[in-house]
């Protein structure tokens, strides 16, 4: 079983994960890129949120101008070693200006949560035993960061510059 953590707290997952060949239920749905490409107009015509789940090999630029039609973009980690989604999340937030929910799904580690957070993920589908305390701890193990990222966090270089001025 899994839980959803969003914006630092447990959240209800309102999206129904729909297989490529299953009928679309009422309410928000999460579909694959393949399905979206086949049924784009149908999906966008519905009066309810559409989420898309991208596989690690699927570059978000494939979404084209539709990217901001999605209230949710789930990025899959097929195996925690596959780090492509870190770049996809960054791309969504910066180049594509995506402001909706970017959710980490699949096989990822507690130890990756901080990196995911930095590059623009704001929701995590986690196993049952994964607590909010663990989530918060993951984000605070390293107080400072050397390099700028999507999160806009102040970097060590900036902290140093500020310290020199004061």
């Amino acid at each position, binding site marked *: 079983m899994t839980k959803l953590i969003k914006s630092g707290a447990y959240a209800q997952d309102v999206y129904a994960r729909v297989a490529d060949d299953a009928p679309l239920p009422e309410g928000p749905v999460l579909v694959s890129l393949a399905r979206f490409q086949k049924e784009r107009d149908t999906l966008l015509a519905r009066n309810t949120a559409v989420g898309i789940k991208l596989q690690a090999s699927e570059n978000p630029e494939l979404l084209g101008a539709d990217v901001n039609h999605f209230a949710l973009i789930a990025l899959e980690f097929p195996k925690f070693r596959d*780090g492509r989604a870190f770049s*996809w999340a*960054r791309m969504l937030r910066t180049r594509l200006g995506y402001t909706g929910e970017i959710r980490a799904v699949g096989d990822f580690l507690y130890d990756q949560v901080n990196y995911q957070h930095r590059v623009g993920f704001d929701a995590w589908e986690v196993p049952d035993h994964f607590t909010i305390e663990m989530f918060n701890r993951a984000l605070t*193990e390293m107080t*400072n*960061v*050397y390099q700028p990222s999507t999160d806009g966090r102040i970097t060590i270089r900036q902290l140093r510059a500020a310290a020199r001025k004061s």
Partner: protein
Amino acid sequence: MLNTLNQPLAKPRQPNMYRYDEFDAQFVNERVEQFAGQVARRLSGELTEDQFKPLRLMNGLYLQLHAYMLRIAVPYGTLSSRQMRKLAHLARTYDKGFGHFTTRTNLQFHWARLVDVPAMLRELASVEMHCIQTSGNCVRNVTADQFAGATDEEIEDPRPLCEIIRQWSSLHPEFVFLARKFKIAVGACEQDRAAMQWHDMAVQVVKNAEGRIGYLVMAGGGMGRTPYVAHVMNEFVEREDILAYLEAVLRVYNQDSRRDNIHKQRIKILINTIGPEEMRRRVAREFDELKRMGTLQLPKEELDRIAAYFKAPDFETGLSDEMPDAGPDFANWVKTNIHKHKAPGYAIATITLKTPGQIPGDASAAQMDAIADLMDQYSLGEVRVSHEQNLILPHVRKKDLPAIYAKLKELDFASPNAGLITDIIACPGLDYCDLANARSIPIAQKIAKRFEDLDRQHQIGELKIKISGCINACGHHHAGHIGILGVDKKGVEFYQLLLGGSGAEDSSIGTIMGPGFGEHEIADAVERVVNVYLAERKDGERFLDTYRRIGMEKFKAAAYQEAAAA
């Protein structure tokens, strides 16, 4: 109280190098505690081995043939005496009294215990050292020319940029789960002592037509199963744009590399699949975007601020620039192991860890402590590690060289063989490494003993032998003038010969000669190859030059000739 040189204890000297401020110190300390937490979670079973492996690799910890191996970062090959003494202490306390300097200028301990590693990391942090990202699919230790800051051949010291790259790449959130390892080297001379073209990415400090300093960036070099030499990605990147450019290359690599076949996941494969032109186009796109965003701009003040840490020490003036006369043995050592220093009266001294019969690149704790004393006494507290597994005292007064040489003789580190045939690079091989197919150290020892005679070594001249115990090529065999690759033929160790590789500015990939030689044949085969060179060479040609001129045929015929006759 006396030091290992039987002199009164000198005050430890702190060289001009990067020093941690409170942010750096906090960073490594927190990283240590993070890893300690991961170790605890592994021991309790909260993490499986499969989950723990990438985490421990990113802290430099391998599981090898006999025990764990811990790889300690030596950023751009630079160590202070304090750090060297700490390494000696760790060798004595936690290992079996020795360490191994690697082809990426790091230090490895071969007998680490998982449960000790957090304590070892805390000790390292206390002297501004760490094991962060020395393994794993991430950006590894940034290496540089071992003569940086001392030679007059460079446009400027490359190490400030190395330090800036080190910080930028440390726990970079987007790039800690790359498709494979990513190795970066930085150079600033025409002479390439950092094997730049063999790296995933390399930066060369250059001057443009207007005399402005900038960076040439190349990418796609790499050893292993399929060796490649790097392609130029950009002839001239402005100083302030360099981090943006490096990030652009890494972004394209992370996004576009294959993830389905571990043997096809280095950036060299990507570039050779899509072609360097297309790679440049993709990188340029990311680069332009990053430049527009401006977040990675490297201001001149920041580059200057970091460079100030590395400013040249106050060299003495008025020193004689004459080399002292201290006998024929000393003169032999000077011939090969001394390089010109930019300051008059000074020299750069190479300590080859390659005395014939020794394990290449190894130093005992006692030897490390003695070298620390030499560093304080004679080299302003500083030593460098080269990718050729040697140590370098970068700033020594010529008049001190005889005393240094005398001490090196006591340490058995005075072999006058830098760049000669017995200055062999060898990986630990099957004696230590879980990945190996064959032993490499005994082969290095055998060959070095075979060619021990100094007159013969000088007759042969520059000849770089590099030995790897498996196709992962940690011994850089593809870049050897003579390369040796250990293979497993039905459970028996065999050794393939390669000729004509180079890791210098004339980089080339060695050509495999043919079927392998047995353990007891390989030194003979190498000797026959060398004899062909001696018979065929013209006009001061090195081995490499003769090979490039005449090709493989005669070498091959000679190498296999006696094997066939036997």
